[in-house]
């Protein structure tokens, strides 16, 4: 069993509105799975179905090979996008209560809580009320609530919104650490830079349909255009450009460089190898920049969404 979570053609309607249309995803064990999509695509609906907050109209969900049942709640940690805690309750009491609801014993919860509070340097908040904390501080507490019962599957819905860069980094490191410890992470977001950093699998949902999924590397390979960014030291730029244009398809490029050189994007045909290009270029000028253009998650996101519109 390599997949921790499998959703099979899940559909959900709210009245006439189709929130999910035959969406299937497979989340491999130990991966960080990015669930991507523009606003209102259906990400949160899918997450709620996984959390058994709502039931799918058709289709089914398996966790660790078993159909989803009530007791699986203990195996899932969920950080919703809409953050909230009981405002008038004290931090310590509140986290203990929520952990007990997830099936931990009080003593065990207390022990783990001490550990986490130390780790996130929030030990002295125990007796504070949530309403005395800032938004970011409350979010840290919620993060602890999500991970405290050591679930197999962690679901984070926009986990970094509202954090300053330092705390965002802290949380990011914790997520990576949790993955090291064996947890699987589903990560819903439309912030592509964090996807780039963290995810190894992604699924892209747009207008209730899944339009793309797979390993991030594979997808990138699929979307790459065989384009290379080159920087050449040239005495006569126009002449040099002409020579290259005779053999390859080029476009002006823009990247940061220390020298005033000729910058070009050169696109290769599938049959040509990058070595050929490089040896050709070295024969006519001095090369000080050579880089394959890899599509960013952002580019892929925009491109796929735009394509699906047409």
């Amino acid at each position: 069993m390599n997949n921790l979570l499998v959703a099979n053609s899940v559909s959900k309607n709210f009245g006439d509105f189709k929130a999910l249309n035959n969406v299937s995803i497979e989340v491999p064990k130990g991966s960080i799975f990015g669930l991507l999509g523009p606003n209102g695509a259906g990400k949160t609906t899918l997450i709620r179905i996984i959390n058994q907050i709502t039931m799918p109209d058709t289709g089914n969900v398996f966790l660790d090979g078993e159909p989803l049942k009530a007791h699986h709640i203990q195996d899932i940690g969920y950080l919703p996008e809409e953050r909230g805690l009981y405002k008038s309750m004290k931090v310590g009491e509140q986290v203990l209560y929520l952990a007990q609801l997830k099936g931990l014993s009080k003593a065990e919860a207390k022990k783990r809580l001490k550990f986490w509070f130390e780790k996130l340097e929030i030990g002295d908040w125990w007796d504070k009320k949530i309403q005395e904390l800032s938004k970011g501080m409350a979010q840290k507490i919620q993060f602890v609530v999500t991970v405290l019962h050591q679930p197999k599957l962690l679901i984070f819905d926009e986990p970094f919104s509202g954090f300053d860069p330092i705390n965002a980094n802290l949380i990011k490191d914790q997520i990576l650490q949790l993955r090291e410890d064996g947890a699987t992470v589903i990560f819903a977001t439309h912030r592509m830079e964090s996807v780039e950093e963290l995810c190894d699998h992604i699924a892209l949902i747009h207008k209730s349909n899944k339009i793309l999924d797979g390993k991030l590397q594979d997808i990138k390979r699929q979307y790459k255009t065989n384009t290379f960014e080159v920087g050449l030291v040239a005495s006569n730029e126009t002449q040099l450009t002409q020579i290259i244009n005779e053999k390859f398809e080029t476009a002006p490029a823009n990247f940061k460089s220390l020298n005033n050189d000729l910058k070009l994007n050169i696109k290769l045909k599938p049959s040509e190898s990058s070595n050929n290009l490089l040896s050709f270029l070295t024969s006519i000028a001095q090369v000080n920049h050579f880089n394959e253009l890899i599509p960013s998650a952002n580019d892929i996101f925009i491109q796929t969404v735009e394509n699906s519109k047409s």
Partner: protein
Amino acid sequence: MNHLSLIIKREYLTKVKNKSFIIMTILSPMIMIALIAVVAYLSQLNNNKERTISILDESGLVSSIFKNTEYTTYTILKDLSLDEAKDLVEEKEEYGLLYIASGTDINDIAKTIKFYSQDTPSLTFLSSLETKLERKLTDLKLQQDGVDTDKIKASRTSIDIAQESYEGEKTSKIDNIVKLAFGGIAGYLLFMFIIIYGNMIMRSVIEEKTSRIIEIIISSVKPIQLMMGKIIGTSLAGITQFVVWIILGSVLMVIVSAIFGINMSEMQAPQQEMMQQAMASQDMQMQAQQMIAAIYNLPLTNMIIAFVLFFVGGYLLYSSLYAAIGAAVDNETDTQQFMMPILMPLILAVYVGIFTVIEDPHGTVSTVFSFIPLTSPVVMLMRIFLLGFHYGNN
């Protein structure tokens, strides 16, 4: 099950530990008692005023019936004309002057009786004077016509129909009055309880939504557990407050009356005095004794069982309606519109209870409303003590 008890515990503790809850739990009975003490003190001030009444009885027939009491002094004026008497009474700033003209025909005398005073006299005082005069003049008239008034007094018979059911259960009118009173109090208590604590449940249901924690909770427990936990936890907090109110209230009442000497029996002394004189005092004593006996004779176990059953059932029914409203709206301002449909049957039940149950506890109207779920708890609480509760018989 474990989740449910956790939720109940949290709901109860957060309610009870809340500062405003603690303050109101302690303050409310104090305010109530302070209010009662102030009202009592003020009416005592008003009633304890001693009154001096002058009486100018030109007929000489009735002056003998006025005897001084603790708060009222009667002065019989003699050999004065009406105008002189008025001047004198005004000068002395007495409460007023009662004038009875001379004459032989009692009907004529009765028509001439007048009360002169600076301000409008107290109504109760005036009617007590009227009763006294009426009694005396009636006696005089009877004597004039040759009737022996002593014989009439002796032949007066009082009747109190004893009641007994076919099963041999004995009751009396006073028993029923006492039962009705207890039923009324119980029904009204439920009504108050629902209004005060129903809202609390509604607010606690909205709490998760306004604080946005709902998704976390709902992904950990079943919604039904959350709802049950909230209703039970909040109700327990409500009961706690109610009990504290009752205990604190009665303790304070005792303390206050001990310190300030405000005693219920003294409080309305002048009125009571008149009442006692107006009524044959023996009857009163008899009735009071019967009343106490009736209270002791109440089927306490049955009553408590019935009370708990209908109180809990009725409260849970209404509180789940309140909870439903809380679940249907997103914030508290939206709840206002939904209050009406809940309050209507409740108010209807109280009015049915007051107007029909007292008139005829087993009549069609009372019976029908006892079967309608929304009015049943209040109406049944009012009826139940009269029914000779036979566990499901009624």
